[in-house]
């Protein structure tokens, strides 16, 4: 199967199945009728605001809230002391001042002993309106004793480094995971070392070592994080409207954190204004709105400011990767080794499956066929905000893809070989799938060379190289950068993957009503991906019900089955599969009902889109709509067949899916200013079956812009004292329409063999694949100056410095 057959068109003009279709959700959004958390207003609602630490590391000597409490309009002021006084079942610590992170570490809800990063939550004011709540923050007096801050991960383990997590009795800044490990390895350490040593001694081989930093960035969705909590004092029911990518997982976490019975918790994620991983975790602010409602008996809203979002919520990356690659002089890769120092901030809050603590960094072996690879990842605490979940995709795949694609370019430079040629020599071949990598992942399917050749053809690779040579002769600097990435998405098989002990399978529920209209209830959560449309198309494809007759319901734990939510591009691979499976259950049941109605054996029936008909007698048929009515009617149903036409399913994926792609970026660099202009960007993605190509392409566009931003502009930097230098959109620069080129997209289609409809997921592909293409292009442009590597972001200043021969280090503030 290479392409999807054309779907028939419904009366409303939509494909009954796969194909581009306008989004259902757009009707409310273009009218300004989206319903985001900040749009939720309840009678008597109060507003919360958080006082945050100005210091990166300081002892709290005292907190005086009396002036704030006396301020007109202030209803309550909550500090860490207040929280310590609220008992809770001792399941996860015995009071509310601390909460668990997604990695079994603890995180302060409000600081009691010390503050551990700038922007940490210190007190919570509840007032009648948000202006008053903010005013009162100024009236809280906190006496701090500043301590030395650990801002450089490389110095975190120095014996003289101040200890950040003394609350846990630590004597250094190492991180120990739930299994007792202080670092995480995968692959073959001995074989890899031997292969590298052998290559070093062999005159026909080369070994290249490069330190590659993926600096700290932030997903910065346009809607910041927030919540509205109401704990009904009479029924004990907690309703929480919140910016969550994973409402069901949040429900369970609140049950654990707040000690509330889970059946009395309802999480509603109405419309979410972008997530990109930023809205996976549970933040202190959410918990404080819940506590605020418990304390006041009123609904409490908390919405963070942009600076709070950038300074305190889940960051991404902050990976120092020291890589070694060995190859023959002909360009055959032999081995890759990488030693990573991971800066996890003050609380270990990364969301990694328990059994894969290095996360999906295991995919650093990339898209190439070679026998030996090994990685070691060592995490440390620093005085920075916790998180690490964020920014499509930071199960650490983005870091891994960037790492290998940058390292391969360094190898090409060393060999004096064209980077396209080097890649083509090493790509995994179609006949090698399923392909087991040296780190044990099993790639499901791919036609890598075909995809790469298409990208090269689209961009006109050979002509560009000629143009480049001519320009260089004239002293003009253009660069061509290639990135070939493979992602592992759709976490994941229950036997291998969980978050906080919750298996990563997704539930789904389909109800076909008597008139043949249907409702599909999802556990996953759209943040702009268009689930209301795409999922209706999956059901349409399986049952022949037009997509306009299918309502997709999501974002409310009381009305949807359990599942782990949307991140890591997991909706289509997991929940999308569930949608197909549940539809097929309905189809199978419909067959039995049709057979009863047609008075024949189910075996005599055959399915064509939307109906069961008697083989060889197509006029004797029942449409799915007729069957829906029959299933609710008075028809005598066969033994064992219940009435109605509903079904549920829980999909446990047998493997991850492995979307991939080849991106080629063309840049022009002004050597006088270091200014980079992206001239063209060609992206060929293979995400298997495309349910709604229009939406797939939109997802890719967005990710490409992310990649351009990270490669050229975005950086959460700190000064030595721990001041965050990326705390507003004045300093944390995001790409606008001017920095982004007119994306040129292509596709190949290699379905996933184990996914019911062959779809692989695409939400994060472009974010994963694009940074390396941009950086490789810039380095290619300035390679005549002897530059082999420079770290992101390649701002004009950093490019200019690299041209001058100065190493670029971005993890600290630029001196």
């Amino acid at each position, binding site marked *: 199967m290479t392409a999807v057959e054309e779907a028939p068109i419904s009366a409303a003009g939509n494909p009954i199945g796969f194909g581009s279709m306008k989004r259902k959700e757009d009707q409310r959004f273009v009218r*300004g009728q989206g319903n985001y958390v900040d749009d939720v207003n309840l009678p008597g609602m109060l507003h919360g605001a958080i006082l945050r630490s100005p210091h990166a590391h300081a002892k709290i000597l005292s907190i005086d809230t009396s002036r704030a409490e006396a301020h007109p309009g202030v209803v309550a002021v909550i500090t860490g002391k207040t929280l310590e006084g609220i008992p809770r079942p001792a399941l996860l610590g015995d009071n509310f001042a601390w909460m668990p992170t997604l990695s079994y570490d603890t995180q302060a809800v409000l600081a009691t002993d010390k503050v551990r990063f700038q922007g940490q939550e210190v007190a919570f004011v509840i007032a009648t309106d948000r202006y008053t709540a903010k005013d009162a923050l100024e009236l809280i007096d906190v006496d701090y004793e500043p301590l030395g801050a650990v801002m450089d991960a490389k110095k975190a383990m120095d014996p003289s480094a101040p200890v950040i997590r003394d609350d846990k009795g630590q004597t250094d800044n190492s991180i120990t995971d739930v299994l007792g490990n202080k670092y995480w390895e995968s692959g073959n350490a001995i074989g890899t070392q031997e292969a590298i040593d052998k290559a070093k001694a062999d005159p026909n081989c080369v070994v290249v070592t490069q330190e590659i930093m993926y600096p700290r960035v932030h997903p910065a969705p346009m809607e910041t994080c927030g919540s509205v909590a109401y704990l009904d004092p009479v029924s004990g029911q907690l309703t929480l409207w919140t910016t969550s990518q994973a409402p069901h997982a949040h429900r369970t976490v609140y049950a654990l954190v707040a000690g509330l019975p889970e059946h009395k918790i309802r999480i509603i994620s109405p419309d979410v204004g972008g997530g990109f991983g930023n809205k996976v975790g549970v933040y202190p602010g959410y918990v404080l709105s819940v506590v605020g409602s418990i304390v006041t008996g009123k609904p409490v809203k908390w919405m963070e400011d942009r600076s709070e979002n950038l300074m305190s919520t889940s960051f991404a990356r902050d990976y120092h990767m020291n890589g070694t690659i060995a190859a023959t002089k002909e360009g055959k890769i032999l081995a890759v080794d990488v030693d990573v120092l991971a800066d996890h901030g003050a609380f270990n809050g990364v969301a990694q499956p328990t059994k894969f603590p290095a996360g999906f960094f295991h995919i650093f072996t990339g898209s190439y066929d070679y026998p030996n690879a090994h990685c070691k990842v060592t995490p440390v605490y620093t005085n920075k905000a916790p998180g690490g979940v964020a920014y499509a995709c930071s199960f650490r795949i983005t870091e891994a893809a960037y790492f290998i694609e940058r390292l391969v370019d360094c190898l090409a430079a060393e060999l004096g070989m064209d980077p396209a040629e080097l890649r083509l020599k090493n790509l995994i071949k179609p006949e090698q799938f399923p392909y087991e990598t040296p780190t044990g992942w099993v790639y499901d399917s791919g036609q890598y060379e075909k995809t790469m050749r298409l990208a090269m053809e689209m961009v006109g690779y050979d002509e560009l190289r000629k143009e480049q040579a001519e320009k260089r002769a004239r002293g003009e600097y253009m660069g061509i950068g290639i990135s070939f990435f493979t992602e592992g998405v759709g976490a994941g098989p229950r036997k291998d993957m969980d978050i906080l002990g919750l298996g990563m399978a997704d539930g789904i529920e389909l109800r076909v009503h008597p008139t043949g209209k249907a409702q599909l209830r999802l556990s996953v959560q759209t943040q*702009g991906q268009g689930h209301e449309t795409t999922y209706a198309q999956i059901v349409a494809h399986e049952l022949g019900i037009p997509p306009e007759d299918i309502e997709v319901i999501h974002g409310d734990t009381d009305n949807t089955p359990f599942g782990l939510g949307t991140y890591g591009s997991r909706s289509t691979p997991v929940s999308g599969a569930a949608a197909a499976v549940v539809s097929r259950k309905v189809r199978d049941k419909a067959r039995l009902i049709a057979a009863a109605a047609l008075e024949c054996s189910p075996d005599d029936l055959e399915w064509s889109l939307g109906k069961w008909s008697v083989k060889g007698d197509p006029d004797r048929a029942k449409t799915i709509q007729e069957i829906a009515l029959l299933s609710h009617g008075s028809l005598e149903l066969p033994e064992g067949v219940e009435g109605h036409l509903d079904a549920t399913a829980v999909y446990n994926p047998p493997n991850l899916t492995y979307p991939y792609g080849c991106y080629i970026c063309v840049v022009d660099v002004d050597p006088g200013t270091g200014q980079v202009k992206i001239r063209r960007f060609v992206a060929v993605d293979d995400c298997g079956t495309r349910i709604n190509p229009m939406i797939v392409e939109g997802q890719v566009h967005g990710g490409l812009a992310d990649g351009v931003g990270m490669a050229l502009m975005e950086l959460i930097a700190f000064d030595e004292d721990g001041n965050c230098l990326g705390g507003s959109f004045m300093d944390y620069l995001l790409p606008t*329409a001017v920095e982004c080129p007119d994306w040129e997209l292509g596709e190949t289609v290699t379905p996933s063999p184990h996914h019911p409809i062959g779809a692989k997921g695409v939400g994060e592909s472009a974010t994963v694949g694009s940074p390396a293409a941009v950086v490789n292009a810039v380095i290619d442009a300035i390679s005549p100056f002897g530059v082999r590597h420079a770290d992101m972001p390649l701002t004009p200043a950093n490019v200019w410095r690299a041209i001058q021969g100065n190493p670029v280090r971005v993890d600290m503030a630029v001196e």
Partner: protein
Amino acid sequence: MDVTINVNGTDYIRDIEPRMLLVHFIREELGLRGTHWGCDTSNCGTCVVWVDDEPVKSCTMLAVMADGHRVKTVEGLEGPDGLDPIQQGFIECHGLQCGFCTPGMMMTGRWLIDKNPDISEEEIREGISGQICRCTGYKNIVEAIRWAAEHPKGSEVTA
């Protein structure tokens, strides 16, 4: 402080704090939730509305400064004949994903094509460069605005 502000054709008389931002007046006082807020520093443009027919970041303006002026928000785009072409263009060209930046983008887009119906792609990109979208990578927003320029009467398809 008493103000009279005309929003989407209706005069609203309110007694407000002098420091109240126009974006909060629109959202909280009038309950018009289509205008969004996205940053502290007037960089994101999710809050763009028209004041006297010019796009303005409503977080940069105090509500009292709009006293006696006309404001138009996303809720004022749809007319008796249905969606404005700019709204249709965003649907047609998949110019939105999460929808959070969309009202601001549409208000600026509508103004750009009113000023210059033959606007080029480059001019559109320049025109929306004070606004951030994290979802779409801008290509389809640019196309949506061009679609609206090319279909001044809109189309029946998505009306």
